[in-house]
């Protein structure tokens, strides 16, 4: 298929167990003709074996044996579909167990989040949690789908009440772009095709919204940040002196001739060349993977960052992050962890839990300092050496960190730098 508006949009879905998340994804894939016949035959057969009257589109998304047996989603799965307008990546996250951790995983790279609300139940605690996490992770676009409209007789009043309610509580959150769509995932109303039962709804169906969301501005194009992943030294004929700093541009734009600073050393130089594969290019921008050479021979290696002279991140050893704890092993205060920030790894300790957030009420709890899986808290971290930091709200790539537990090698926490 030729794609015209040839961008890639990543989105995540959030909703409680029975809000119809899997059905919605199944519907999007089915109506956009992204389910192949043999896959459809397989779920038709399983539906029949389970004694269901109709084909259960939700079966399409549950990939593991345990998931199919128990009818639940255990872990994030990724799905793909393409329309003539765009390519889409869906991070399909489980609704109930370990929801915070999984939603954070799916949301970290998403351009958009779809939050499902059951029209019969309206805004519930779970909706608020999802909206909070979406705002915490600074997902640029939020699409609230009021689902199961068929079960409330496609009532415009019910829909309007839910929209008003959502807008009231979300005014406290840092969400910028919110859209509302009344849908029935089961019947396909306003998913891919416009609903015939809701002529009062003047907006676009979900797929059209996804196809036309403006995502070019989702990446920071102002602050140039380039973390070195590895140094390429071919040492072969024609390239004896070549020393390329390889990495993926996190944000901003770089041009040959730009005056740059290598952090943390502070050495200055100019960009001599930029390579994208075997092609030499004049300018490069996020999220391109490139290799740069500099005019001076300076010491720069993995974990260092090449930035512009007049726009530098802060260098700090002590800083605050909003952190989501991801693991069964609880936080041991004062324990050492490995902090990973871009390609830079440092030993770090959690100095203090400043407050915990009740994600149902958004209230701060300064008394309870015990953190367990799925908890979100503001913490103070001290790292062994300076880290080149940006606030997460300015830069989702250089504003994010993870903590790895030394004894188990497990990723135990995800953090967003507060600036």
């Amino acid at each position: 298929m030729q794609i015209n508006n040839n961008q890639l949009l990543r989105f995540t879905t959030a909703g409680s167990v029975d809000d119809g998340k899997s059905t919605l994804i199944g519907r999007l894939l089915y109506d956009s003709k992204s389910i192949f016949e043999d896959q459809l035959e397989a779920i038709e057969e399983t539906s029949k074996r389970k004694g269901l009257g109709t084909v259960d589109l939700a079966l399409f998304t549950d990939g593991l044996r345990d998931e199919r047996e128990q009818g639940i989603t255990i872990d994030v799965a990724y799905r793909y579909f393409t329309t003539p307008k765009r390519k889409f990546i869906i991070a399909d996250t489980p609704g109930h167990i370990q929801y915070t951790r999984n939603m954070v995983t799916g949301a970290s790279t998403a351009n958009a989040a779809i939050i499902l609300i059951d029209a019969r139940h309206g805004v519930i605690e779970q909706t608020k949690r999802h909206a909070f996490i979406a705002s915490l992770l600074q997902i640029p676009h939020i699409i609230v789908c009021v689902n199961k409209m068929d079960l409330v007789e496609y009532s415009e009043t019910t829909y309007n009440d839910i929209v008003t309610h959502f807008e009231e509580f979300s005014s406290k959150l840092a969400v910028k772009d919110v859209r509302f769509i009344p849908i029935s995932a089961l019947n396909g109303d306003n998913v891919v095709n416009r609903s015939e039962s809701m002529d009062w709804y003047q907006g676009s169906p979900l797929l059209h919204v996804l196809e036309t969301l403006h995502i070019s501005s989702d990446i920071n194009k102002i602050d140039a940040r380039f973390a070195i992943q590895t140094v390429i030294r071919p040492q072969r004929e024609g390239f004896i002196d070549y020393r390329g700093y390889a990495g993926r541009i996190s944000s901003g734009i770089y041009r040959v001739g730009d005056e740059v600073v290598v952090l943390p050393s502070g050495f200055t130089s100019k960009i001599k060349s930029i390579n994208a594969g075997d092609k030499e290019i004049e300018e490069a921008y996020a999220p391109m993977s490139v290799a740069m050479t500099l005019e001076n021979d300076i010491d720069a290696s993995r974990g260092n960052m090449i930035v512009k002279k007049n726009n530098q991140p802060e260098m700090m050893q002590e800083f605050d992050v909003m952190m989501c704890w991801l693991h069964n092993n609880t936080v041991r205060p004062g324990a050492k962890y490995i902090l990973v920030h871009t390609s830079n790894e440092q030993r770090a300790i959690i100095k203090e839990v400043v407050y915990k957030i009740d994600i149902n009420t958004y209230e701060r709890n300064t008394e309870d300092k015990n953190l367990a899986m799925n908890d979100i808290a503001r913490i103070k971290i001290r790292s062994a050496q300076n880290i080149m930091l940006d606030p997460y709200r300015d830069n989702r790539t250089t504003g994010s960190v993870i903590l790895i537990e030394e004894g188990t090698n497990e990723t135990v926490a995800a953090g967003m730098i507060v600036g």
Partner: protein
Amino acid sequence: MSKYYLNYLDELESEAIFILREVWAQFQNPVILFSGGKDSIVVTHLAQKAFYPAKIPFALLHVDTGHNFPETIKFRDDLVKNMGVQLLVGSVQEAIDTGRVAEERGKNATRNTLQITTLLDAIENNKVDCAIGGGRRDEEKARAKERFFSHRDEFGQWDPKNQRPELWNLLNGKHFQGEHFRAFPISNWTEMDVWNYIKRENISIPSLYFAHEREVVWRNNSWIPNSEFLKIEPNEEVITKKIRFRTLGDITITGGIESEADTLGKIVDEVSTMRHTERGNRSDDKRSESAMEDRKREGYF
């Protein structure tokens, strides 16, 4: 004027290159699992771009089942020579000869599952700590659950219920001795993306992907190529047909499709109208609903 955003193929390419460089930076002895199929060829091509102007810093590891298409082996050897990379081969035949594994019996016997032992042996013997594969999440429902960096325990097992969360672009490849990782740089690519990319980059692929005349037998709803390993049943007839292969596995289990697509352009057009998944012709996946998941848990690529 440049609009400063990437099209989807460039973004996928950039992501894959980032992952390949992370593998190189985080592991001591990574290899590319090379089957001679289009996905591992694309991964190798991406590795060339990731480390240009240096050579690919990974060896290629081929798990040789002994039931190959001769074209695949020739393609492999030419590629290794042209790129100047090291080739490691794990031999299933050798594992059978030394009694490490036993050949399957029965009419539909294949060497598919036998690869697991050979792959894990090769990983252990060569002290490989990360095996880079061309696996894609759109291929199969169990693969949809796969991370970019996928942990394997000391027995080479995958535990889909205990995967490390992968956030932003922060990949955690830390592991203990004896454990290893699988890395999947083209996880987010679909079959269509792979073909569009092969066409755009004009990457050379084995002739088997292009339609050509070949001796085949109609079995399990697809055209199985005639070979020295195929036992023709009394009710079967070997005929010559113009076919091509959509995926490449062992010659005994890879079904061809009738096609006139003999150029990359025609293949792209053909694939975009396909109504069946590419693995639909792979009998190894049809054994049970969780065939792939079960093999992967044991260490299958």
